[in-house]
C-alpha cells in the first residue's frame, strides 16, 4: 500500500530537486520537470484501480491527532490521475513557453511539481489536518508561481494569497472543530457523517464550504482569479485556477456534501443559489471584458456555478453532473488559457481590440480554442454539453425551474461571449500590426498540449458514458448497470434511473437521465453532413473573387475593422444588470477590497490615537492598571 505515496512523493522529490539545481542547467530543468509530471501521471494511472488505505503516526498532542494517513477510493483515484495529466500538459506547454526566452524554468517547474504533489496529497489524505497541510501547500505554490513568474504578477499573487488565506483559515478552523468534536480521521468521519441540523454542525459545514468556494472561485470569493489573470502566465492560470484549484475546491465540496455531512435542504438551497448567481454574475462580467485572459478568468468563475448547482441539488444525477463538469471544465478551460498564452507569446498582446484575423496564421491554436469554446458553451456533442445536460436534468428532477433557467441562460451568454472572442481574435480583417505573426515559435510542446486537450473535449463528449460509468458514477456509489451502493446521503432520482415507483431499474446504457451521447453525435453528424451537402450544392456556381473596396476606396484593414470589444456594451445599459456590473467592475462587491475599505477607518482611528506624546501613553498605562484592579476587585 506504500504505492499510495507515489503520486505525492514523486512530484515532491523531483520538484525539490529542480529547485536546488543551479540555474544554468536549463535543459535538465525542463527534462526533470516534464519527466516528473509524466511519472506522476503514470503513477496515478497505474494506481487507478487500487483501493486501500495506509497510515503512519506523526503527531498526537493534546487532543490533536495528525497521522500521515492516505486512502485511495473510487473518487480520489481518477482525480489523482487527472491531476497528473494536467501537470504533464502544463509542463509540456511550459517547455514551449520558455523556449528562446529568458527567465528561469527551474522555479516554474519546481513550484508546478510541488503544487501537483500538494493537490495529490489533498485528494489522497485520510486525515483532516493532513488535508489542510496539502491544501495550503497548493495555495503557497500558487502564490510563488504567480509572484516569481512575471513582474506584473506580484499584485495579483498577493491578492490571491489573501483571499485564499481566508479560505484556508476557514478550512483550518472547520477541521479543528470537527476534529475536537468527533474525529480527525476522514474514514471515520465518512463512516458516520455529521447531520447538519444543529447550529454547530451547520457552522462547520459553512466554514468548509467557504474554503471550497474560495479555492474553486465561486462568487463572491472569486475576485482573486480575474486580478491574478491580468498579470500571470497563461500556463499558470491554466494549471491552477483553471484546473487544479477547481478540482480541489469541488472535491472538498463534494466530500462535505456527500460523505462528511448530511446537509439540510436550506444549506443545499444556499449552495444552489450561490451556484446560479455565480453562473450569471460572472458570465455578464466576462461579456464586457477587453482583455482575453481576464475574460477567460470570468468564465472560469462562471463555470464553477454549474458545479455548485449540480452538487447542491443533492441528487445522484446532479452530483455526477457536477463532478463531470469539474473534469470537463478543467480540460476546456486549460485549453482556452493555453491558447491565450500562445496568442500572447506570438502577438505580445491580450487586448481584444488589437487582435484579429489570426485564423489563417495560427490554425492549430484556432482549432483547439474553437473546440474548447464550443465545449464551454455547452454545444453538443462536446464534453461541456454532456455534463451541463446532466445538471439541467437534475434541476428538472429537483423541480427547480428558476435554476434551470439560470443554467440555460448562462450557457447562452457563454456562447455569445465566445462568439465575441472568436471574432475578435481569429476572424475579421487582420490588423497590420499582426502581420508578422506565425504559429509554432514555442516548438511542439504548446500545440501538443492544446490539441490534446481539444481532443479530450471531443472524446469525453462523444463517449461520455465511459467516464460516467467507470469513474464518476462509482465515485458517488453508482455502479455500472444502475445499482446504487453507498452514497446513503444522496436522494435518488426515480425519474432518472428507475421507473415511477422507484423499484425497477430502467434499461438505459447508464442510469443517468436521458443523455445518449453516441446517438446524439450520430444524428448531429448526419445533420451537419446534409447541411454541408445543401450548402455545397447551392453555392457551387456562385463563388467569385474580387478585391474588397469600401466607398470607392481600397479596403483599409486597420480603418475598417470592427473589433468584437463593442459587441455587448449595451449589456451595461440593462436595468438591474448594468448597475450590478458597474458595482462589480469598480470592486465594490469584492470582499477583499470591501474589507480594505472597512478596515481603513479603524486603522486611521488607531493611528490617530498614537499621538507620540509620552503624556498620553502614560495615561494609557495608568488607565490599564486601574482597569485591571477594577476587574480583579470585581471578581
Amino acid at each position, binding site marked *: 500500500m506504500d504505492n499510495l505515496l507515489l503520486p505525492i512523493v514523486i512530484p515532491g522529490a523531483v520538484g525539490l530537486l529542480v529547485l536546488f539545481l543551479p540555474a544554468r542547467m536549463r535543459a535538465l530543468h525542463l527534462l526533470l520537470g516534464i519527466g516528473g509530471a509524466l511519472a506522476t501521471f503514470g503513477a496515478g494511472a497505474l494506481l487507478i484501480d487500487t483501493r486501500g488505505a495506509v497510515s503512519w503516526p506523526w503527531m498526537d498532542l493534546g487532543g490533536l491527532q495528525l497521522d500521515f494517513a492516505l486512502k485511495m477510493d473510487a473518487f480520489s483515484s481518477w482525480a489523482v490521475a487527472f491531476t497528473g495529466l494536467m501537470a504533464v500538459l502544463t509542463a509540456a506547454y511550459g517547455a514551449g513557453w520558455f523556449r528562446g526566452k529568458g527567465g528561469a524554468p527551474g522555479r516554474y517547474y519546481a513550484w508546478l511539481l510541488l503544487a501537483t504533489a500538494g493537490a495529490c496529497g489533498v485528494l489522497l489524505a485520510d486525515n483532516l489536518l493532513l488535508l489542510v*497541510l496539502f491544501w495550503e501547500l497548493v495555495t503557497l505554490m500558487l502564490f510563488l508561481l504567480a509572484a516569481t513568474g512575471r513582474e506584473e504578477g506580484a499584485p495579483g499573487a498577493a491578492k490571491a494569497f489573501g483571499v485564499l488565506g481566508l479560505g484556508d483559515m476557514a478550512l483550518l478552523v472547520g477541521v479543528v472543530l470537527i476534529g475536537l468534536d468527533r474525529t480527525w480521521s476522514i474514514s471515520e468521519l465518512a463512516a458516520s457523517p455529521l447531520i447538519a441540523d444543529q447550529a454547530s454542525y451547520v457552522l462547520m459545514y459553512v466554514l468548509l464550504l467557504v474554503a471550497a468556494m474560495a479555492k474553486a472561485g465561486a462568487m463572491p470569493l472569486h475576485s482573486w482569479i480575474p486580478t491574478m489573470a491580468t498579470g500571470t502566465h497563461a500556463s499558470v492560470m491554466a494549471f491552477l485556477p483553471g484546473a487544479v484549484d477547481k478540482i480541489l475546491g469541488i472535491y472538498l465540496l463534494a466530500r462535505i456534501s456527500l460523505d462528511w455531512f448530511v446537509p439540510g435542504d436550506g444549506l443545499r438551497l444556499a449552495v444552489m443559489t450561490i451556484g446560479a448567481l455565480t453562473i450569471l454574475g460572472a458570465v455578464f462580467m466576462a461579456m464586457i471584458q477587453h482583455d482575453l485572459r481576464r475574460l477567460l478568468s470570468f468564465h472560469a468563475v462562471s463555470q464553477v456555478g454549474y458545479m455548485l448547482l449540480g452538487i447542491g441539488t443533492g441528487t445522484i444525477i446532479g452530483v455526477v453532473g457536477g463532478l463531470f463538469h469539474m473534469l470537463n471544465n478543467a480540460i476546456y478551460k486549460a485549453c482556452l488559457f493555453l491558447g491565450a498564452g500562445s496568442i500572447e507569446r506570438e502577438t505580445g498582446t491580450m487586448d481584444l481590440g488589437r487582435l484579429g484575423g489570426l485564423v489563417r496564421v495560427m490554425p492549430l491554436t484556432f482549432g483547439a480554442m474553437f473546440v474548447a469554446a464550443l465545449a464551454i458553451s455547452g454545444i453538443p456533442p462536446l464534453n461541456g454539453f454532456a455534463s451541463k445536460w446532466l445538471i439541467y436534468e437534475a434541476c428538472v428532477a429537483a423541480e427547480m425551474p428558476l435554476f434551470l433557467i439560470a443554467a440555460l441562460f448562462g450557457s447562452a451568454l457563454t456562447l455569445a461571449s465566445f462568439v465575441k472572442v472568436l471574432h475578435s481574435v481569429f476572424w475579421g480583417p487582420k490588423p497590420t500590426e499582426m502581420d508578422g505573426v506565425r504559429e509554432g515559435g514555442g516548438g511542439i510542446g504548446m500545440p501538443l498540449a492544446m490539441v490534446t486537450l481539444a481532443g479530450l473535449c471531443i472524446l469525453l463528449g462523444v463517449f461520455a458514458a465511459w467516464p460516467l460509468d467507470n469513474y464518476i458514477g462509482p465515485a458517488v456509489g453508482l455502479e455500472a448497470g444502475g445499482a446504487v451502493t453507498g452514497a446513503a446521503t444522496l436522494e435518488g432520482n426515480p425519474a432518472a434511473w428507475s421507473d415511477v415507483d422507484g423499484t425497477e431499474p430502467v434499461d438505459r446504457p447508464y442510469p443517468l437521465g436521458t443523455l445518449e451521447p453516441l446517438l446524439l453525435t450520430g444524428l448531429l453528424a448526419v445533420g451537419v453532413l446534409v447541411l454541408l451537402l445543401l450548402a455545397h450544392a447551392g453555392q457551387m456556381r456562385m463563388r467569385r473573387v474580387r478585391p474588397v473596396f469600401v466607398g470607392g476606396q481600397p479596403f483599409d484593414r486597420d480603418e475598417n475593422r470592427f473589433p468584437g470589444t463593442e459587441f455587448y456594451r449595451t449589456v451595461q445599459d440593462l436595468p438591474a444588470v448594468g448597475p450590478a456590473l458597474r458595482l462589480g467592475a469598480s470592486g465594490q462587491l469584492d470582499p477583499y477590497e470591501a474589507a480594505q475599505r472597512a478596515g481603513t477607518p479603524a486603522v486611521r482611528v488607531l493611528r490617530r490615537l498614537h499621538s507620540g506624546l509620552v503624556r498620553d501613553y502614560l495615561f494609557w498605562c495608568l488607565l490599564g*492598571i486601574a482597569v485591571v484592579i477594577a476587574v480583579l476587585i470585581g471578581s
Partner: protein
Amino acid sequence: MVDIIPLFVLIPLGAAFVCLLAKKKLPAAAPTVSLASALALLAMAVACHVEGASGASIAGAWSLELHGGVAFIPGIALVLDGLSAIFLLLVALVSSVVIVFGLRYMDSYDGRPLYYALLNLLIAGMNGAVLAGDLFNLYVFIEIASIASYALVAFGTGGHEIEAAFKYLMLGAVASASILIGVGILYASTGLLNMADIGAMVAAGNVSEGALLAAAALFLGGLGLKAAMMPFHAWLPDAHPSAPAPISAMLSGLLIKTLGIYALVRILYVVIGMDGPLGGSLQTILLVLGCVSMLGGVLLGLGQTDFKRLLAYHSISQMGFVLVALGANTWLGVAAGLFHAVNHALFKGALFLSAGSIERITGTRDLSKMGGLAKVAPMTAVGTAGAALSIAGVPPFNGFWSKLLILIALFQAGLPVVAAAAAITAVLTLVCFTKVQRKALFGKLPDRLATAKDVPLSMSMPVLLLALLCLLGGLMWPLGLDDVIGDAAAAVRTDAETNDAPASYRKLVHDLGRKP
C-alpha cells in the same frame, strides 16, 4: 549541571566588562569576546537540554550563601527548570546569530565596543531574569536588561533615536516602579522574597487577598508593559525600529519575551497562582488584553509602509497570541503560547535582521520605494520570504503549528470567540506579510536599484539560518519537539485537572535548601 547555572549570568557579565576595559587598547577584542561568550552560552544551554533529555527533567538550583549554614538568607537563588531552560536556549541562539549579523552591520556606527558591552549586559540581564529564584533579583535583572536596552535604542544618537529611547525610558520607569511596588507589597505581607516560598504561602491561603490583588495588578501592568501588551505597548513601535537592526532583533525577538512573557508566566502561575481565588479574573484579563493586542497590533501593522515599524506592530500582535494562549490556562495553552513565543523569536529576529539588510541594500525602510529585491539580493530575499511565510502562519513553517495549537487550546478551553479573533488576526497577518513580500521582494525593481548588490554573507547567512530554523521547527515534530515544549509548559502547568506544577517547582527549590 547545577554548578554551571551561575555561569549563564557571569559569562556575559564578564564579557561586558572585558569589552569596556579593552575599549581603548584593543577595540577588536569586543566582537571576539562577545561571540565567544554567546557561543559558550549556546553550548551550555544545549548541554542543559541534552542532560535533561537523558535524565528525569531539566532541573537544578543554585544559591550563593553569604552567611553560610541555612540557605535563603540574603543570597542569589538561581533556579533552572524546563521553562527557564527553553528561554536560556532561545536567548543564546538568537543572540549568537545577532552578534554574527552585527559584525559587518555595525561598521557604520561609532563606539562599537560600547555596543558589545551593552549587548552583553542585555544578555546577562535576560539570563538572570530567567533564572532568578526570588522576586527582588528578578526585578534587578529586569532592570539590568532594561537599562541596557534604553541605551541601545539610543545608540544611533540621532534625533528620533533619542526621542524613542526617552519615551521608552519614561514608560519603562513606570513599569519598573510598578514591579518594584508589587514586590514590596508581597514582601510586606509575607516577609519573603523567594518565589517558591511566597507561592507556598499563597497556596496555603496565608496572604491577604487585598495584597495579592494589588500585587497582581501591578505585576500585570509592569510586566505587561515589558511584554508590550496593549494598552501598555506604546513605547514599542518607536523603540524597536529606532535601534540598530541587530538590537531590534534582540528587543523584539528576546527582550519582550524574557522580561515580559517569562516573568508573567512565572509570577502568575507560581507566585499568585492561576488556580487561586484571582485565577478566573486573571484569565479574563489575559484573554481580553490578548485579543486587543492581537487585533490592534495587526490593524496598525496593516497601515504601515515603514518596514521596521510594521514589524514592531506585528510584535504586539504576535504577543497577543501568546497572551490568549496563556489565558486558556491549560497545559496545551501554555505549551502553545511558549511555542509561539519561541517561534516569534526566530521569525521576528530574522525579519528585523533582514529589514536591516534591506535598508542597507536599498537605503530606505519605506516599502513603497522597494521592489524586485529577489533579483538583486537572492539570499536575503529567500530568508525574508521564509520568515514572512512563517509569521503569516503558512505550513510547513513553525508559525503555522503554534497558531494551530493555540486555536486548538482555545477551542478546548471553551473560548470560541477568542479563537475566532485569533483566526481573524492570523488571516490579517497573512495579508500584511503577503503585501510585504509583494512590495519588497517581488514585482518591478526600481531603476535606481538596478545595480544594488546583496549584503555580505555574514549578514545574509544569519537571516537564512533563522529562516531555516523556522522551517525545521515546523518539520521537527517527529524528533521530539513536542517533548521540549511540553516539558517547558509542564514546569508551570501540568496536564492534570488540578495543576501540581507549582508544587513541584517549590519542591525543586526546597531540595536546594536542604543541600549539605
